[in-house]
């Protein structure tokens, strides 16, 4: 990795990065995203929290069905109403809730599959890597409950000595009316 960083002088941006640098980082990032998804699917929420940065912003604004003329108001803005607008403390509460033994909406537990695709690195400067991905979170619970949440997300990863940490996850769901009893899950 050091050799690759040397290949890109400090005054050049991610847009100038060569193919080898792009390919290696793409591989590293994808492997992180897959490992993270596997932890969530395996319900290893506490371990997942270990991949979350102290300054995480985990946010899912509300999307509205609007006309083309009103597309600038399709999503609620930061600070307005959202489905998730979590910091680290809130995410820890969500995990504690799942571990409590009395989170009835997850007992029996849901079965989930976090599919992450179309990963594109938008920027990589210093320790921060910003990427865009498509997600499909499939959840089924009890015998007949099925939820399927599809959308686009923008993540920021921070490279540390111990690997990547998730520093931002902004989720842009495709549904406007949420066709689910709840979202008692982590995206």
């Amino acid at each position, binding site marked *: 990795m050091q050799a690759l960083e040397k290949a890109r002088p400090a005054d050049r941006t991610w847009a100038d990065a060569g193919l080898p640098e792009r390919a290696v980082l793409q591989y590293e990032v994808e492997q992180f995203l897959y490992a993270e998804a596997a932890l969530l699917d395996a319900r290893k929420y506490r371990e997942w929290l270990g991949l979350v940065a102290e300054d995480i912003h985990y946010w899912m604004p509300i999307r509205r069905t*609007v*006309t083309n003329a009103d597309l600038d108001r399709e999503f609620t803005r930061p600070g307005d109403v959202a489905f998730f607008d979590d910091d680290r403390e809130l995410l820890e509460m969500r995990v*504690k809730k799942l571990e409590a033994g*009395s989170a009835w909406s997850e007992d029996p537990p849901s079965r989930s599959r976090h599919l992450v695709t179309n990963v594109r690195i938008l920027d990589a400067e210093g320790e921060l890597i910003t990427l865009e991905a498509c997600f499909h979170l499939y959840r089924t619970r009890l015998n007949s409950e099925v939820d399927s949440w599809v959308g686009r997300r923008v993540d920021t990863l921070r490279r540390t000595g111990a690997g990547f940490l998730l520093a931002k996850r902004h989720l842009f769901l495709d549904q406007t009316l949420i066709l689910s009893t709840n979202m008692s899950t982590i995206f």
Partner: protein
Amino acid sequence: MADGAQVGQAWDSGSLRSLFDPATGLLDRRVLSDEGIYRLELERIFARGWNFMCHESQIPEPGDYFINYIGEDQVIVVRDEEGRVNVLLNTCRHRGNALCRAEQGHAKSFVCSYHGWNYALDGRLIGAPGQKTYYHDDLDRDRLGLAKAAQVDSYLGFYFATLAPDAPSLHDYLGEVGRTGIGMIAAYGDVEVVDGVQKNVIGCNWKIAVDNLFDWYHVPYSHASAQSAGFIDIAEILYPKNQMVMLGEYGHGIGGPGIPREMQDRIDAMSDEERLAYSRTLPSTAPRVRPHAATQLMGPVGVRSMGHPNIFPNLWVTMSGLQICLRLPRGPSHTELWWFTIVPKGIPPEARRAMIRQANHVFGPAGLLEQDDGENWSQSTRSARGAASRKLGHTLSMGLGRDTAAPGEGAGASYIETSINEHGQRWLYRAWTEWMAARDWAELKANHTQPPTGVV
């Protein structure tokens, strides 16, 4: 599909009244599952009652609109050029197509995407392609405007509409208890709705989502994991031995914690500044202490309520006055929940952020409390369909015959101070049977029960 009137013949007044027995608290489970009862509810509850549409701050400018529902009738709530709020049925008078397919936005007029009929913001038909060439100028435009709600009115900026021309005025319909419910929001001053309505659909009957708001019995158990997670301190909000239920004419109710009179006396002696300072010492999930102005809006009894109002049929106000929720019926087995977040105007950005943060995390589909409600309701609804299980009834007997109701401040209201109970649920279903049994407003006015006083 039978319409309401046909079904009404199958469900005569006597059998509708027998669906809930106030003397025992036994509720027939068919109210949660029967298709005929549901069709009749659309006629006799939703089309007849006053339904919450939106807050004035959601449609400030001419042309601003918000889509809502009266039962399953979709309506456009729109401010016209004169600044008036119109509630228009979202269905073209030509072939029934929806004029407006967005859920909110801004429009100069509403043009049908099928053939191009064009309606003004007040619903007038202002044009149709081919009026001369194809219709030969005999299209009766005056008769073919969009259908409108029979009455539209607002209270403290909250707009309501009814399809019934003979419904009482909004003021009289809300009565003391309904006005107290809105007062719970307006108590903190002029308010505005924050951008973004959380909407999700739950596989439950709308009434079980409504009656749950009177149900403080479920809080320690259903929401135990929110306590374990450190999100709420149930003891700080529940006060199981200090519960107050307000019963209002036509089925409105408020249920939940009540401030004991002697504590309210101490609050009354505090200035608004002292109340604010005291509020800051409370947990962030506890409601703020109300200012002096609240007593005018809510009355000396209502101001002591820290419970959840339901404005009949389906508008829940949260005790903090921070959120309201519509429970919109979608067939007997599905309900849409729409959460609106409301904050006082002109408060410091930090306080505004804290309130919105709180609202985002309590209710709504990802809310740390509400996550655990939906499946209880959907499984209760499911069990109302089984041939054997639907005959078992629901048991709403808690506190029955053990409490005393006192008259409210004015006519049409009473209140009970007791411990955790099911008075609110019983009042809701008792009123519901009366609404269902009455064929029109005249019958309902003549035959509904006044909020009881004495032993309840």
